[in-house]
């Protein structure tokens, strides 16, 4: 059994009272919930999940319901997300899987860290085109024709290192949107962003920006 599967099973037994989980084979577990169909979830240790990896998993487990990127640092590419959503396979962190089991929406769940923020963006009428490059990066075109590349920063207290690491990992962005409603970027984070050529903002500021351009 892989290490991440062992951690996922251990965590599952502590978190869920009525549901139970067991190792199926390789990275897969089967979750049994009373009066519901079994769930097959893949627990991946990948640092980065791309379309090729997703297709491999899907080929090995055609009946998979959910793909879990177990590492907190796991990054999902847009094409992988697209493939999963087209095939009605849920995706996200271990926390996303936990919530999806509780809400009985395993097949349609998406990464809980970004779900609400991205849905909010999808509802904005002044955005004429939206391209999700990664789970946390999208490019939006506004009605004015202006295009902005946005990074969603989940941390409670975004730090200078969080901003620099994000930039190094995903490339230049125009906006670092701190999507955690309780988050407060540090002064160093704001300065680091400014030095890189972007700004760290919260939803209220982003809303104004979307309305004004």
């Amino acid at each position, binding site marked *: 059994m892989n290490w991440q599967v062992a*951690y996922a099973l251990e965590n599952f037994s502590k978190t869920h009272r009525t549901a139970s989980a067991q190792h199926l084979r390789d990275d897969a577990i089967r979750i049994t919930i009373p009066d519901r169909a079994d769930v097959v979830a893949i627990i991946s240790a990948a640092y980065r999940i791309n379309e090729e990896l997703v297709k491999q998993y899907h080929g090995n487990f055609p009946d998979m319901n959910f793909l879990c990127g177990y590492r907190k640092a796991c990054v999902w590419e847009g094409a992988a997300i697209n493939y999963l959503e087209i095939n009605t396979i849920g995706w996200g962190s271990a926390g996303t899987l936990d919530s999806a089991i509780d809400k009985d929406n395993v097949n349609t769940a998406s990464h809980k860290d970004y779900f609400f923020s991205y849905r909010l963006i999808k509802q904005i009428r002044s955005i004429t085109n939206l391209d999700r490059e990664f789970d946390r990066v999208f490019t939006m075109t506004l009605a004015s024709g202006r295009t902005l590349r946005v990074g969603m920063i989940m941390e409670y207290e975004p730090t200078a290192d969080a901003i620099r690491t994000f930039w190094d990992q995903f490339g230049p962005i125009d906006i670092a949107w701190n999507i955690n409603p309780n988050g407060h970027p540090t002064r160093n984070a704001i300065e680091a962003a400014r030095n890189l050529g972007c700004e760290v903002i919260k939803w209220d500021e982003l809303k104004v920006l979307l309305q004004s351009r």
Partner: protein
Amino acid sequence: MGRVKSAATEPLMTACEVAHHLLKSCESLREFKSFMFGSSLIGVGTDFDILVVGPSGKPLSRLKAELRLAGKELPLDVLHMLPMEAEETRFVTKTGCITLEQLAKSEAAPPCHTNG
């Protein structure tokens, strides 16, 4: 990586064992203040939250590389803060961080729980 490599066949590491493992494996931690915080301290949660406070630049790059190797088969979530940021946010006090050294020393005694 000792017990980490065979996590699936042996009991999973406790928070204290993770602290001990990181201190032993990551030489660069000497240049930083290091802590654990969050739900893993009480034996729940899906990962071990680690805070490192210290310089940025090369020392941080070295530390990240060491942590990545040490955490190859561990669910680690590492947060770095400059000393100024730690002071500004009062993160250590606010979130009840415990130093890795303190945790490693208490390996044989409670509170030491398996992460889950």
